[in-house]
């Protein structure tokens, strides 16, 4: 290995800035009911960034109820016995009556499903296909909803947080976790404990059925309306054969529209018990005071003594290359994806380094599994395919580590006049170079330095620290967060070459070639 001038310049930054993750004073405590708290005190700004995450996501679903974890995320904003209604008793009665009508609706939907199966109707969701009995039930249901609406205090939780100066009230669902966040002025610490423990202790899934419609609109907006949305969904389903990562977090349309409140109750009892939940607080508060409040508010919620069922299905080793050829109404592109290793796997840091060296190091990294968002100007692929050979206008690589597995992928946009198929051998040639000759010390050091700087960028704000902790706690522990930088710094050139050789094999490829379909008007 010849030492280049550049090597001397790209000195190891970590020596100058040791162990930044350990400088984030994360305190971890556990309540008697098993709920965990991770707290970071920072006193320069009078705000606190809050999160709690339930270790449940789409990977905990099964066919027929896909999308349930995400539906839950929506339901958790619908109130409690106290929040969200003017008359809890009548509200509960109306929920019961709605459930009864929904039983009739489901019976009629079964009739329609059978007709669709036999080809007698094209789409069971089409209003024109409804049976008279179904229309009658839908009308009755509408009446019950309207009556309930008179009692509902609409989005009351949002209102209370808003008035208290809350910002960023939101939630998100991934394959592996559901996360509930808000930021508040620091004097409102107890308000967070009040509202969040209330929605775990006393939830009421109001507006359950109409919320399914919101989610169908969400699916249309975030997936189906994107020109490549349904193709991406199919490609992901092709890539993951047995794993529950096979379906998208939002779920299949057929399932979303038929979920029942009974299924939801069971889901909540299993996965939203405190022993499956971790809270994260970052900002201007005292950890001792917060712990005392946690005991007072969350401590009243009983644990689920049975614990949470594990995800059992493991993705089998892919025996053969899989290919999908699609026409979409957008730019042609080439994607190649391999299933690799989970976010906390010993090989994950080397896979991350391989992605950084080939695809460029995105500006904000340092989290496990994060694909990064910024333009990577510096990767080998950009230099070779975009700048030198001019066969592409964009070329990126990413390692995406999840809890039970991960992917390594490339995405290339051909230059006008080139087809995605022509780029495939060019891409494989770049991988072969790593497999045969490895990477340079300079490339590896630059990756490590960029990762450190990326981590600085993420640890500057309360919300950035919260997001980083959330990423690690989704797939691992606080210790994984504290060790992450050291693990990245420990990666060797041999590690990078080995993971390229081991994971990026021919039979493991999943290839998506898309060409432009001309617009349908």
């Amino acid at each position, binding site marked *: 290995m010849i030492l280049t001038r550049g090597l001397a310049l790209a000195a190891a930054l970590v020596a100058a800035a040791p162990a930044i993750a350990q400088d984030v004073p994360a305190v971890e405590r556990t309540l008697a009911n098993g709920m965990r708290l991770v707290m970071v005190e920072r006193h320069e700004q009078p705000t606190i960034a809050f999160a709690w995450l339930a270790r449940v996501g789409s990977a905990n679903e099964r066919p027929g109820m896909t999308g349930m974890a995400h539906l839950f995320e929506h339901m958790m904003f619908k109130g409690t016995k106290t929040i969200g209604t003017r008359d809890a008793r009548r509200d509960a009665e109306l929920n019961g009556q709605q459930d009864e009508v929904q039983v009739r609706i489901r019976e009629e939907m079964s009739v329609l499903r059978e007709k669709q199966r036999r080809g007698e109707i094209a789409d069971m969701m089409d209003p024109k296909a409804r049976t008279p009995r179904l229309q009658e039930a839908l009308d009755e249901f509408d009446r019950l909803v309207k009556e309930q609406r008179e009692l509902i205090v609409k989005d009351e939780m949002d209102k209370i947080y808003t008035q208290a100066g809350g910002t960023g009230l939101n939630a998100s669902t991934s394959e592996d976790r559901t996360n509930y966040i808000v930021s508040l002025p620091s004097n409102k610490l107890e308000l967070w404990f009040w509202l969040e423990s209330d929605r775990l202790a006393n939830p009421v899934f109001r507006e359950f059925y109409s919320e399914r419609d919101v989610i169908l609109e969400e699916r249309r907006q975030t997936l*189906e309306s994107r020109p490549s949305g349904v193709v991406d969904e199919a490609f992901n389903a092709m890539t993951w054969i047995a794993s529950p990562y096979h379906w998208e977090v939002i779920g299949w349309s057929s399932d979303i529209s038929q979920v029942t409140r009974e299924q939801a109750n069971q889901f909540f009892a299993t996965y939203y018990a405190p022993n499956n939940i971790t809270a994260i607080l970052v900002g201007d508060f005292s950890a001792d005071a917060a712990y005392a409040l946690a*005991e007072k508010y969350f401590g009243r919620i009983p644990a689920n003594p049975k614990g949470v069922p594990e995800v059992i299905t493991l993705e089998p080793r892919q025996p053969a290359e899989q290919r999908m050829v699609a026409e979409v109404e957008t730019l042609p592109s080439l994607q190649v994806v391999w299933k690799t290793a989970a976010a906390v796997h010993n090989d994950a840091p080397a896979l991350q380094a391989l992605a950084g060296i080939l695809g460029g190091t995105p*500006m904000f990294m340092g989290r496990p599994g994060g694909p990064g968002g910024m333009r990577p100007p510096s990767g080998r692929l950009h230099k070779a395919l975009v700048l030198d050979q001019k066969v592409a206008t964009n070329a990126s690589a990413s390692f995406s580590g999840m809890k039970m597995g991960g992917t390594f992928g490339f995405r290339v946009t051909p230059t006008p006049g080139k087809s995605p198929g022509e780029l495939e051998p060019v891409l494989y040639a770049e991988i072969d170079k790593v497999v045969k000759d490895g990477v340079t010390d300079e490339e590896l050091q*630059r990756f490590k330095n960029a990762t450190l700087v990326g981590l600085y960028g993420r640890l500057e704000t309360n919300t950035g620290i919260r997001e980083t902790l959330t990423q690690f706690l989704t797939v691992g522990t606080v210790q994984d967060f504290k060790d992450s930088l050291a693990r990245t710094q420990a990666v060797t050139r041999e590690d990078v070459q080995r993971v390229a050789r081991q994971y990026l094999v021919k039979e493991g490829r999943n290839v998506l070639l898309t060409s432009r379909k001309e*617009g349908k008007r």
Partner: protein
Amino acid sequence: MIRRATLTILLGVATAFAQDIPDRPEKLQFAPIKFETPRARDYKVKLTNGIPAFVAQNGKEGTPLVRVTVSWRGGSYLDPKDKEGLAGLFGSQLTQGGTAKLEAAKLEDRLESLAATLTSSCTDTSCSVSLQVLDKDLAEGLDLLRQALTQPAFAQERLDLAKRQGRQRIGRRNDEVTSIANYQMKHLLFGDKHFASADDTRDSLEAITRDDLLAFHARLLHPANLFVAASGRFDRKAMVDALNRTVGTIKAGPVARVSPSVPAPDFPRTPGIYVTDKDAPQAMVRWAFPGIRRTDPDWHAAFVTNQILGGRGFTSRLMKKIRSDEGLTYGVYSTLEPGTYWRGDVTGSMQTKNRSVAYAMRLALEEIRKLKEQPVSDDELRVNKDGIIEAFPSQWATKQAVANRFSDEAREGWPEDWWASYREKIQAVTAADVQRMARKLSDTDRMVILAVGKASEIEAGDTDHPGALEDVAPLPLKRVPLRDPATLEPMP
């Protein structure tokens, strides 16, 4: 273990209180927070050539990063006719095309070896170059920034790549309802002559040369156009000295010009309900009412009014009605545009399945009508005002946000003390103000509504909710064709 002892005592206290959880969150008591509004003059420094710099150093919790942004007055409003896209290319190529001393690949190599980033871009009315660098490398980072700023090379090869990427971006214009709605709305609101709707075309992009970029640069690089924001870990005096040695040495060249003021549009827009046909599972709906300038004394009342209507997510009326009650959309929003250079618009947007457009739009107009006809309740007004006031400190949560805000506002010609009385002015807004603003800012006769999606389904409406699109408002209904993505001419 003192820590353990403390914990035990606290636990004892907590157990004693366990039954004392109040039955409503309103019963909790909160100590007040005192927050002093940051003042621009505390951060402002004049560099030796007169450029204002806003310098905000980190406290001890910060990381060793430093960020410096230099921004200009000037942007695509200065694009010459038939060279639309010039400012956009200039913005990206300023840092991607190398400098007189360092060719593009060498500049990128230096940045990578420092783990630094140097990026640039232009909007309609401004351009900027931003550096992020570790504090130990500040001197070299600033030198690279200075080179890009004062001696960009605009390498032909990189320009050619950017044009190829630009052609692909242009080719995607009709792929999604959202991007179609963007350009259609601009043409409906500003006509075809104003810069706000003058996007690049295949030919205009092709016509732009390296000489055009050099000339654009020579024209813009005038100290009177420039503003600086610096934040992160540094000694303030050392930072000011470093800025003076770099940005502070810039002098106006022979062809440099102070950027002219931004021209307001004078297009007589035609109110109406417009539909563009595009085969898609969900339609994009946009609307606009004429708004107000941010200098208007009614600005704060208008802001609160918009929050109540649709600017504050789930606490707003539109979201409660159209999403929470009816399940018709994933999100519906109303925005009071800043009105920086001319009276902006109050715009709305939502996506809903094609057949729901008419009903959802009817519900939106119904909410607007209610806000005009009935005074807002004390409770709703208080929630929204308190929300703005209580969340005020979070707007200033990082030194980067403080420095950039003051620098941006200086560039826009904004009064430096505008924020000093902000919370008091929000607090002073009354229910009568809100009703007055609702009337002023939602004149349905001057409204433009646009829906992009499957036109026949959009126009017919939903069988579950009678009413076709033409019944939504007493405005003419008109189809507007898609535009050719390459030329932006309406397609036959």
